[in-house]
């Protein structure tokens, strides 16, 4: 099993997610790797995400190749652009994909999240 994908889902399950509280639903990622397809299920509820390999019928299915998915989670490819390009297919509730795309990494060449010198911070 590919590392970037596993790492991505492992991290997702660990931290408290900055998701709008109203976003609730079940997602499934179908990641094709040659003959094989990996399935990942994400249950999103009240800003919490749980990850598993099986589940009931999802509200939103994301289908793509494993290599494409790896490029997306590691910040080499933009998820929304890939959807528009037809490299990623979404079925069902798009809102869930919109909520989850925020967890994909920033492009590698961009500065890491380094805030500008905030005055609030300086004042304190």
């Amino acid at each position: 099993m590919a590392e970037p994908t596993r790492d991505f889902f492992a991290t997702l399950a660990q931290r408290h997610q900055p998701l709008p509280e109203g976003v609730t639903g079940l997602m499934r990622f179908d990641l094709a790797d040659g003959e094989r397809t990996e399935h990942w299920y994400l249950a999103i509820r009240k800003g919490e995400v749980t990850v598993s390999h099986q589940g009931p019928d999802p509200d939103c299915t994301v289908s793509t190749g494993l290599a494409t998915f790896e490029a997306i989670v590691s910040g080499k490819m933009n998820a929304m652009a890939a959807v528009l390009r037809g490299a990623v297919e979404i079925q069902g509730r798009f809102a869930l994909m919109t909520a989850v795309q925020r967890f994909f990494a920033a492009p590698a060449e961009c500065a890491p999240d380094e805030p500008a010198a905030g005055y609030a911070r300086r004042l304190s």
Partner: protein
Amino acid sequence: MSPDVKILDGNTFVVSDDRGDIEASLTDPTGLFSFDTRYLSKWVLTVDGQRLNPLSVDDLQYFETRFFLVPGTGTVYIDAKLSVIRQRAVGGGFHEELTILNHDEKAVDLEVRMEVGCDFADLFEVKDDLKKKGEYYTRIEDGRLVLGYRRETYVRETWISATAACALDEHGLTFSVHVEPNHEWTTDLHVTLGRGVGGQSIAQPKYERHSKKALPYMERSLEKWLDEAPRLTCDWDPLNRTYQRSLVDLAALRFSPVSLPGHYLPAAGLPWFMTMFGRDSIFTSLQALPFTPELAETTLLALGLWQGSRSDDFRDEDPGRILHELRFGEMTAFEERPHSPYYGSVDATPLYVVLLDEYERWTGDTKLVRNLEQTARRALAWIDDYADLQGNGYIAYKRRNEQSGLENQCWKDSWDSISYRDGRLPGFPRATCELQGYAYDAKMRGARLARKVWHDPAYAQRLEKEAAELKRRFNRDFWVEEGQYYAIALEADGSKVDALASNNGHLLWSGIVDKGKAKAVARHLMSPAMYSGWGVRTLSTDESRYNPIGYHVGTVWPFDSSIVAWGLRRYGFKEEAARIAAGILDAAEFFDGRLPEAFGGYPRELTKYPVQYPTACSPQAWSTGAPLLLLRTMLGLEPIGEHLVVDPALPQGIGRLELLDIPGRWGRVDAFGRGRVDVEKRPRRQSQLGVIEDGGKAAKPRKK
């Protein structure tokens, strides 16, 4: 050149000439468009090889139109024995009913031909004349003609079919038609998005012939939409018309985001800006809040879902930032444009918090405020952590995407809009003044929500402390002492960019203006250099760059003026606010109630009518919202606690005004007012608000 005819359904729209034909070149903006992609660039009807001549065009609805045509071209009227009717409705592509009537005593045999073609241009390509990188194909299958375009995994197809028998070839449809005397022949033509965004296929257009259920999702709810809005009655009749026009236009401007099907937010403008824009959607939602609060709810939800989460220079994205614009075309798909989405707006983020609070004050919907708590906190954090590019505690902007990002990320986004009095342009980053006002307001309102809904008094206290500190510094650093107004911007070295601009009115609205300075600011806004008689100029006539037809350097923007009026009200300048409302509402009458994006800054007594600034988009959302906000400011509607306070200050000529069933946390309440504000001494046209007259009942002479 034939005038354009536009019909639309969400972000799907058709622009054709007045014959109903489409003959687009790459740079010509006609065709069938959906999701920012052209699905039809050629659609030309001939009868026996001849083009048709338009007799009339009926715009039935914003999504439906009808063309009456006769054979033969040229200007000479011919006694036609044939007439042709094309009735077209847009939705999921479009549906066209083509009817040919034979008025002759003899039967006729005709060859009817529809020539078709498609370049699958991205809207951005239409603007910039760029060449395509993929391949075209055509196919005939299952009785339909398929026009396609492929570039790697990107595939878009248009499917074309007819209900009558026809011969299909790669360039069109040919009908061999026989029509008996005084009979008619007819066919339905279907144009659908065979392959669209996400590989989705639409095989049937939304409409079917003569089907009552053929009304689109927008139309089905148009009556309900009008029904649910407050009812206005007013002695001054033009306002009734303008109000109705605004409500209907706002209905046409509703846009359902892909992520929230069945919910609507205001798109920016019709037809080219039928997409989610952070700034435009927020401002329009604010203007329309007392009338249609559900627009604000969807705006908050949709923009919240797309809130920035990482540093992405190409998209000018930061964690917590609210998007500027979302697009779906090929150039966005291949990352040749950054709109997936693009975040290069610096005011949308604080304004998001402002809207969230204002929405709660009106509706009492604390559930939404709770659900968006983290979103709002991140937006507030963005102000301090990512927007202080000058390192001096002020919001500023400077694009990181030098190729295709926006240079000016405030609402006055043209290259020359921010200047010194002498015309010099400042460098980047630029901290424009209204941004600091929005930041102040966002903190104050964030504090209110923190205390009332999130139950975090410590956070509220911190925000209030920061806001107070910001206000204190702002009034020191931006104030132009010799002129007695706020500079339009601050440079990184602390220099005041000292032009006098309408941004001062936004500052009043935000509440950042020191009480002691408000009077001087109001006096400037109402001075002959700023107030044209129709509205407030974007830039004072005393500035070097002033130009009465300069986009952001002298024109009057109804949206801008409506915010200025709101600001004047906030500081107690009721009569001044009424004067601005009177000017803008008088202007609206010259455009049949549909205010343009901007009009010339010429003095009212010079031109007598407002000179429209040429623009491709009409109606435009925040111009449509302006009369609504002006109604609010004139009536002095303000939610206080669980109640709606009404404190009218209406122009005299308006007579009696009633706004019934205003929705909010109080259920529905009514507001009444009578015009008492003497807005203008000098006599002008009859029956305009600028004229003192009793009741103001006489109808203004109409343009048409």
